[in-house]
């Protein structure tokens, strides 16, 4: 069995964002980058399936972006991926989901992947499109938003998360694409020996120019900070004075609830 996991490197959402000079994207220089949270569940699911099948499946982890994404790929190899594929693209951030999916499909086509796993969305753009589009392009069935996954003899029985805690149980045959939701599993922390082992695993670098180039369908016209509603009273400073201020507020609020 061949499994492809597609991961994206995203800024740490706790960073302070600044809009770039052109007003079309954020300054990348100030940011720390990490693996998109949703994709960690995809990597973990691939590794679990590999373990379930006695190590037979081969897990390839792919990412598109500048050289820094190799760090994220390396981390997934320490989680148990077998090899990495880095599609080198300095302009990845300007591409829309359609173009990103086309690159992935162009790489994957004809390679006989049985299962393609992605996160259900990225933390930065949250468009929830790439996984489904890859499936459409490859002609694979696709199940999205999975919070449960079990595999037996070519068939996956999965739980899709719906609203308000309801789930739908779905069944599909491989080959297929599945997109992973938060809580699907508990992604492992790489152990030190596995981090060492991962250093020797191969990451194949592929020039983006060697893959299918699709025209853009949607682009960012302007990026900006949301207008503050200005209603929040911000309490900063020494903890003792912060406490003083908040306790006074809570006294009135709690009195009214009693």
């Amino acid at each position: 069995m061949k499994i492809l996991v597609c991961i994206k490197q995203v800024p740490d959402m706790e960073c302070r964002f600044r809009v770039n000079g052109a007003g079309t994207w954020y300054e990348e220089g100030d940011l720390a980058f990490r693996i998109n949270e949703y994709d960690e569940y995809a990597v973990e699911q691939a590794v679990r399936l590999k373990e379930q099948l006695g190590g037979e499946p081969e897990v390839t982890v792919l990412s598109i972006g500048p050289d820094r994404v190799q760090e994220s790929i390396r981390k997934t190899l320490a989680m148990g991926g077998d090899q990495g594929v880095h599609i080198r693209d300095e302009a990845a951030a300007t591409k829309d989901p359609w173009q990103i999916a086309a690159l992935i499909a162009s790489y994957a086509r004809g390679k006989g992947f049985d299962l393609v796993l992605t996160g259900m969305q990225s933390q930065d753009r949250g468009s929830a499109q790439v996984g489904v589009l890859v499936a459409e392009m490859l002609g694979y069935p696709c199940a999205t938003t999975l919070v449960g996954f079990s595999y037996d003899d070519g068939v996956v029985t999965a739980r899709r998360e719906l609203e308000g805690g309801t789930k739908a149980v779905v069944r599909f045959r491989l080959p297929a694409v599945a997109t992973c939701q938060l809580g699907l599993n508990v992604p492992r922390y790489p152990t030190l020996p596995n981090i060492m082992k991962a250093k020797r695993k191969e990451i194949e670098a592929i020039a983006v120019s060697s893959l299918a180039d699709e025209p853009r369908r949607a682009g960012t016209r302007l990026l900006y900070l949301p207008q503050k509603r200005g209603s929040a009273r911000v309490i900063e400073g020494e903890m003792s004075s912060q406490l003083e201020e908040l306790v006074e507020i809570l006294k009135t609020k709690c009195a009214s609830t009693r």
Partner: protein
Amino acid sequence: MKTLLVLECRGGRLREESYELFAFAEALGGERAMVLIGGEGAVPKASRRLYLADAARYGEYDPDQHAKIIVEAARREGSDCVAFVHSSYGWDLAPRVASALGAAQVSEVLGVKEGAFEVGCCNGKLRRTMATDTERVVITVQGGAFLSWEEPSGSPEIVAVEIAAEPPRIELVGYEAAEAKTVDLGSAEVVVSAGRGIGKKENIPLIAELAKALGGELGASRPVVDAGWLDHSHQVGSTGQVVRPRLYVACGISGAIQHLAGMKGAEYVVAINKDKDAPIGEVADVLVVADVVQFVPALTARMQQYAMTG
């Protein structure tokens, strides 16, 4: 614009959220029509044309067939915009429909500004406007972003749609109801919630004690539940419970849209966060910039003291 609104049916009934699409269509302007894969019981209270395919034949969930039906309706209607709710149904189907129509897709639209679509970015810390380069466009609309205060009324002109039925590639085996609740947050007057910012499971009691001192219930954001620090009945948000307390205290919670969906009806919101720019500040009345692990126990002690001495 000719917009086709994709309504949702679950368990034989129309999902209420579908009505938000009407407010979106209004904001966009132009003509609208609707499409629904459902049954008699799910027909919306709304005028205009409704393309109706029978869920008994195509299933309530079969993304391949549903996409084909929606594409067929869009072709017949000559729609240049197809709009979904950004829900588990909508985000699953929209890319399939966009792909078939050769359309650009813009996800989770929260506003329409001078003909461009406004969307969030980076967990709500940024916003962007999107321009599309295609003739047609597929949209998913953020829940709660377009609300109409009018009572739905009217009845549609129904047009039946049929396509050649095929065996599903993704088979719906059945639904699983939400786990039984061990706490009812919905009726609580005070809810104090723990987020990922509390750092570790061992810090849950700190938040639980503040909840107790304020006479409230303990809530949580999703990562706290996913990590197994608390069970699902504590989760507040679009995939948890919706709360409307008089006081909501968010401890180490960033304020993602799915969390806000569960608590924005709170009367008064206090957020304790080390990040002054955390999006929770958008809905909070008070934002205390502090480390929760230090601040919360001190606050609890003060509130306990107050309760004793009055």
